[in-house]
């Protein structure tokens, strides 16, 4: 594409095309968007985060990531659409404008670049990282079981051949460690939204224990209003709840770690669909999925802005 205006958001793209899109977006909006490299993957690919900022220094921030499980293609595609939407709506949409006038937004579109490249080159249904585990012929660690929060407890596997293998130690995966270091160095992130697919769920901590999160009531209320906004567009039905109650026990998960870092508004989305296509959601559903999800994300961002802590 010659510019983001001619970029086709209604089809899936390769890693190179998405990285090219990011560079175009930065070039088109240098006052608003910048690209940070927060690390390099196991196979040496750069890990990029887009920063949307209207100034200030180390402002309170909102983090959004997509694609941590590489086969969940509708999430990276939605991330691309979110990036363009932010540049289109700043100055137009009063809610987003007030958010960006006081806060920064960090968006990591391809959170597992090695896995994503592998889904295009060898195995479309690859989920994990591509790190080699000494002593095993199986490859990769589940990056959503590798965080230092209930790490290694029930809700993950210690078998390197399992899709939910937690890795040899917490933050063993550089794709995870890069985010950990970024979050710790930044120190002022107030909301953390990690986007997966599928099964249409909005989840909050905890996944590794049944004890409710101290902010459970507020998170549940916020999830409800976010989903009200989401379903207002196409009527898409989501369920919500804590990870362990809404689906199953999962240890070493992203948002359990971010919540335990003090980031109160920690959520995971599981986007479309509920089970006609699963991970193979037709590209025709990318834009509607991104549009409805954006309404929920914006609700969470507004709440974060209006409830400083």
């Amino acid at each position, binding site marked *: 594409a010659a510019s983001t205006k001619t970029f086709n958001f209604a089809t899936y793209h390769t890693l190179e095309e998405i990285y090219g899109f990011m560079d175009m977006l930065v070039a088109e909006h240098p006052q608003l968007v910048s690209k940070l490299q927060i690390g390099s993957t196991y196979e040496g690919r750069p890990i990029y985060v887009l920063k949307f900022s209207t100034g200030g220094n180390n402002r309170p921030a909102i983090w959004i990531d997509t694609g941590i499980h590489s086969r969940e293609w509708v999430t990276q595609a939605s991330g691309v659409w979110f990036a363009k939407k932010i540049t289109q709506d700043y100055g137009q949409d009063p809610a987003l404008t007030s958010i960006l006038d006081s806060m920064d937004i960090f968006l990591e579109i391809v959170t597992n670049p090695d896995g994503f490249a592998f889904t295009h080159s060898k195995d479309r249904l690859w989920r994990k990282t591509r790190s080699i585990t000494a002593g095993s012929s199986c490859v990769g660690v589940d990056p959503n079981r590798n965080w230092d929060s209930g790490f290694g407890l029930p809700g993950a596997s210690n078998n390197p051949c399992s899709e939910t293998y937690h890795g040899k130690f917490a933050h063993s995966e550089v794709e995870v460690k890069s985010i950990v270091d970024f979050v710790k160095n930044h120190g002022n992130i107030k909301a953390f939204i990690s986007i997966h697919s599928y099964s249409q769920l909005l989840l909050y901590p905890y996944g590794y224990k049944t004890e409710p999160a101290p902010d459970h009531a507020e998170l549940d209320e916020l999830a409800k209003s976010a989903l009200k906004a989401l379903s207002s567009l196409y009527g898409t039905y989501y369920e919500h709840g804590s990870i362990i109650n809404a689906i*199953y026990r999962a240890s070493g998960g992203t948002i359990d770690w971010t919540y335990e870092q003090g980031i109160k508004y920690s959520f995971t989305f599981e986007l479309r669909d509920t089970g006609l296509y*699963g991970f193979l959601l037709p590209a025709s559903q990318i834009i509607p999925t991104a549009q409805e999800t954006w309404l929920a994300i914006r609700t969470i961002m507004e709440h974060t802005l209006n409830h400083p802590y």
Partner: protein
Amino acid sequence: KEDFAGHQVLRISVANEAQIQKVMELENLEHLQLDFWRGPARPGSPIDVRVPFTRIQAVKVFLEAHGIKYTTMIKDVQSLLDEEQEQMFAFQAR
């Protein structure tokens, strides 16, 4: 590139904990190479699993033998992937 011709995705509906345990037994049989798209959670919550072509018969017999209901969510994974690739190439060509 991995070929998924004939692979199916089954949607399993478990009625009770005993049936979940049975499905977990399947999950632990590595030679079946099952890929759980939605893992076993609780009675009433669907379990989606991709089954390689060569294992489909055995898995269906196992489920039926234990009275575990299932439907076929995706009849042939590769055909959906082919469509996806065609759509991507068509765009790139344009």
